[in-house]
Every structure is written in structure tokens, then in C-alpha cells.
């Protein structure tokens, strides 16, 4: 089972490296959105500090959603996806490795650059740390949930807007608790409960999303 | 009677809620029935054309 994961992961990462532009687009979108808000709202540091968690998280949500297109579309277009479904390996496992690779390539950069963006909003140091942690736990959940949406809308015209309609409502609980934990951290309240909940989301998503995505892929391809 | 309509000053809120509910539900049923009638007519026309062409 591990060799399957390893194999898929290596393949995905090599493909991603060959298409660095896709990866960088997500990152740059994230940075631009987060940087636009102070320009629109005005540079009052107190206001910015309060809204920072929400903005960073929403931007992460949107960037994550934009990146979903590259999860299955290329493989669908050249027929690889069909072959993957036909292999004797459990499809859920293959899907999991694809999603993990996707997260490594689109989610982790967001997590790494978040502290810099947090500084733009004058977040205190301990809040920056909480922000990074919340994104670290939350972005995989976003990729996992998004994978279901990507699989359902495979090859459809108007796919981008449709996927947002399907996936954003499902993202909401993650957003609430992800931004919530940073808010709590800023006000000095206890953040443990939020983190436990976020981790619970991650565990549930890890268990339920790959099979659901596999089922969706089968439905979409037939 | 007018006291009933004003509902202690909250008339706007109450009648907006009840009114919207009634409006939406009635419209839904009317719209659906019309759609069904139109569908029946269209299907019958198609069936007549088919049987006309076949014979």
C-alpha cells in the first residue's frame, strides 16, 4: 500500500514541478488578495489586526478552490484518469495520494508565506504562529473537501463557477473554526478546543473524502 | 379589525412574513401546474407529428 502511495506521490510531484506556473499562480493569487484588502479598507492598524484572520483564511479558501482545477482535469483530458480507475489498486488510495500531492504543492506554500502576510496586518508574534498552525491543519481539509467537488464537476462546462457553488458551502465550517482559532489567539482566549475541532475535521476528511471522491470519479467517468 | 391588521404595531413584520410565504407557495404550485400543462401539450403535439409521419 505504501509503495502505491509513494509511486503516485512521486509522479504527482514530478508533474507539478514541470508545471511550476500552476503552483505559483495559486500562491500569487493568495498574496495579492491578502494584500489588496488593506488598500481597500484603509491602513488603520487596529482594524486590520482584527480582520486579519478572516481575510487570510478567506483568501486561502479562494486560492485553494482555484487550484482544484489542476487536481483531476489534466489526467482526465489525456485519459490517465480512466486508466487509474481501471487499475486493481483501490481508487480511494490513489485519490488520497493525489490530494496529498496537491496539498503539498498548493497548500503548503500558503502556510509558509502566511507569517509574512500576517506581518502586513500587524499581527502579534504568537498570533502569527497560531495562524500558521491553523492553516497547516485546515488547508489539507480544504483540499480533501475540494477534491469531491472537483471529481463531481469533471469535464463540465462552466466548471469553475459550479465548483465554487458546490464547495464553498462545505468549506464554511473549516473557515469558521480556522479563523476562529486565530481570533481566540489574538484575544488571549484558550485555543485548544478550536484546534481539537480542526484536527477532528482533518481526521474525518481524511477518512471520508477519498472514498467519496473515488465514487464521484466513477460516476463522472463511466 | 384595524387592530388585527396592525398587530400591535408589528403589522409590517407579520404580514410581510405571512404574505411572502403565501405568495411563494401559491406561485410555486401555479407555475408547476402551468409547466405540466405546457409539457403535456408539447408531448401530444410531438406524438401527433410522429404518428402522422409514420403512417
Amino acid at each position: 500500500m505504501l509503495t502505491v502511495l509513494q509511486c503516485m506521490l512521486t509522479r504527482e510531484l514530478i508533474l507539478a514541478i514541470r508545471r511550476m506556473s500552476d503552483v505559483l499562480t495559486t500562491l500569487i493569487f493568495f498574496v495579492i488578495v491578502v494584500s489588496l484588502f488593506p488598500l481597500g479598507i484603509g491602513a488603520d492598524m487596529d482594524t486590520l489586526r482584527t480582520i486579519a484572520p478572516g481575510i487570510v483564511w478567506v483568501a486561502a479558501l479562494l486560492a485553494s478552490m482555484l487550484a482544484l482545477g489542476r487536481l483531476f482535469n489534466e489526467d482526465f483530458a489525456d485519459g490517465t484518469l480512466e486508466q487509474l480507475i481501471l487499475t486493481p489498486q483501490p481508487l480511494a488510495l490513489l485519490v488520497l495520494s493525489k490530494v496529498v500531492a496537491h496539498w503539498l504543492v498548493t497548500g503548503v506554500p500558503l502556510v509558509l508565506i502566511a507569517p509574512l502576510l500576517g506581518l502586513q496586518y500587524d499581527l502579534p508574534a504568537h498570533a502569527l504562529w497560531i495562524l500558521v498552525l491553523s492553516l497547516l491543519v485546515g488547508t489539507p481539509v480544504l483540499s480533501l473537501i475540494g477534491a469531491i467537488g472537483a471529481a463531481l464537476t469533471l469535464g463540465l462546462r462552466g466548471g469553475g463557477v459550479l465548483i465554487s457553488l458546490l464547495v464553498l458551502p462545505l468549506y464554511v465550517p473549516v473557515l469558521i473554526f480556522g479563523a476562529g482559532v486565530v481570533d481566540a489567539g489574538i484575544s488571549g482566549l484558550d485555543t485548544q478546543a478550536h484546534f481539537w475541532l480542526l484536527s477532528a475535521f482533518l481526521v474525518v476528511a481524511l477518512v471520508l473524502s477519498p472514498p467519496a471522491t473515488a465514487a464521484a470519479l466513477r460516476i463522472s467517468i463511466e | 379589525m384595524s387592530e388585527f391588521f396592525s398587530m400591535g404595531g408589528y403589522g409590517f413584520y407579520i404580514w410581510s412574513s405571512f404574505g411572502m410565504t403565501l405568495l411563494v407557495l401559491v406561485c410555486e404550485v401555479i407555475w408547476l401546474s402551468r409547466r405540466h400543462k405546457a409539457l403535456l401539450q408539447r408531448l401530444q403535439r410531438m406524438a401527433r407529428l410522429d404518428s402522422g409521419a409514420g403512417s
Partner: protein
Amino acid sequence: MAINWFKYSSPASFYPVVDRTIPWFMGSAVLLAIIGLYLSFFTTPDVLQDQKQYYRIIFIHVPAAWMSMWLYLVMAGWAVIGLIFNTRLSFMMATALAPTGAIFTLLALWTGSFWGRTSWGTWWDWDPRLTFELILLFLFIGYMALHTAIDDPRRADRAAALLALVGVFCVPIIYYSVQCPDPNSLNCRALHQTSSLRSIESSILTSMMVMTLAYWMYSFAAVFIRLRSIMLEREKGSDWVNELLGRMK
């Protein structure tokens, strides 16, 4: 008594059932609504001080919210049955339920907004129940959008069914978000906190139940009318449809 469940699982045999029962459902809905509204306005006491009549909104708000959750569950139920047994009719039922479910969710949000404005002073609040009811609306709309976006009816049915299943988690959240264990903790700052069926006076409860039944009968009627159209549209060209059209002339 052995019921042949699969007897009605074909559109051909179920259509007459649907067709004949619509007037009955509609009739009972209207009757129950009249009774319910009469009870709501004239037999329930003026509960709050200063004769605050706005509380009457709950007689259409709570039943609408209940229906929105119930219809989603029923839709998801038919989705599961369709996915397991591969019966076209189950998927048609689910598709027929979605718009009515969306409408009740919309009504629950609309009336809830007016209720909130009068009793808490705000048109909207991001407490768990309201937020997830809104998400429920998006789930219904998403179901309809996904189904419409896919041309192949089989793929459309199954993809939308899967989506409906994924969204089921919403309903328990809405339902249980009021029974908060610790009202003082972070997650339970909810406006809906104090509503609980047990402590409501019986006449109010009766009116709510009657209105809920009225809504339920209405849902049957509306969903069946829609289902009729869906069945004819999807099965056009088949023998039973042609026969039906022939009999209608």
C-alpha cells in the same frame, strides 16, 4: 402482508398514483392551513408582555425550518436508495424534492429574519443555526445546479445524489445547534439558545404542529406535481407515455 415494494418503482406504475393523489394533498394542505392559521391568530394567548404580537411569526417560521431539514433528509434518502438500487424513479423523486426544499429553506430564512428583527433587533446574525440553514440553501441550489449542468441524465442523477449525501452533515448541526451543553463556552453564543419544545405552552405547540402538517401536505402536492412533469419529460417516447397521451385526447 407482503408488500411488493418494487411494484411502484417503475415510473409507469407510479404515475397514476401521483396523478390521483395530488388534489387530495393540495386539499388537505389548504384545509390544515386554514385551521392552523385560525389557531395561530385566535386561540393562542398573547404570550409576551406588552401584547407583542410579532411572536406569531414563529407559526410559519418554525414549521418552514422543520420542513427544510426534513425535505433535505428525504431527498438524501432517495439519493441513497437510487445509488444502491439504481432505480430511475428514486433519482426523479430526489430531483423533484430539491426546489421545494430550497423554497422552504428560503422561507425559513426570510421569516426568521423578520422574527429576528422584531425580537432580537437584528435582521441577521451569524449564529450556528442561521449560518447552517444558509448553507443548507446553498446545498439545495448546488444540487439543482449540478443536476442541470450535466447533460447525461444518468451521470447527473448520480453526481447530484452523491452531493446530497455529502451535505447531510448540515441537518444534524442545525437541529442540535440549539441544545448547547455549555451556553457559556465559545461556540454556543447562539440566539436560538432558549427555544425548546418541552417548555412551550400546548396551544402554541398545537398550532405549530397543524401548520407543520399543512406544510407537509403541501410539499407532497408540490413535489408530486413536479415529479409528474419530470417523469413525462424523462420517459417521453416510451410506451406508457404514448399510451397515456393517447388516452388523454
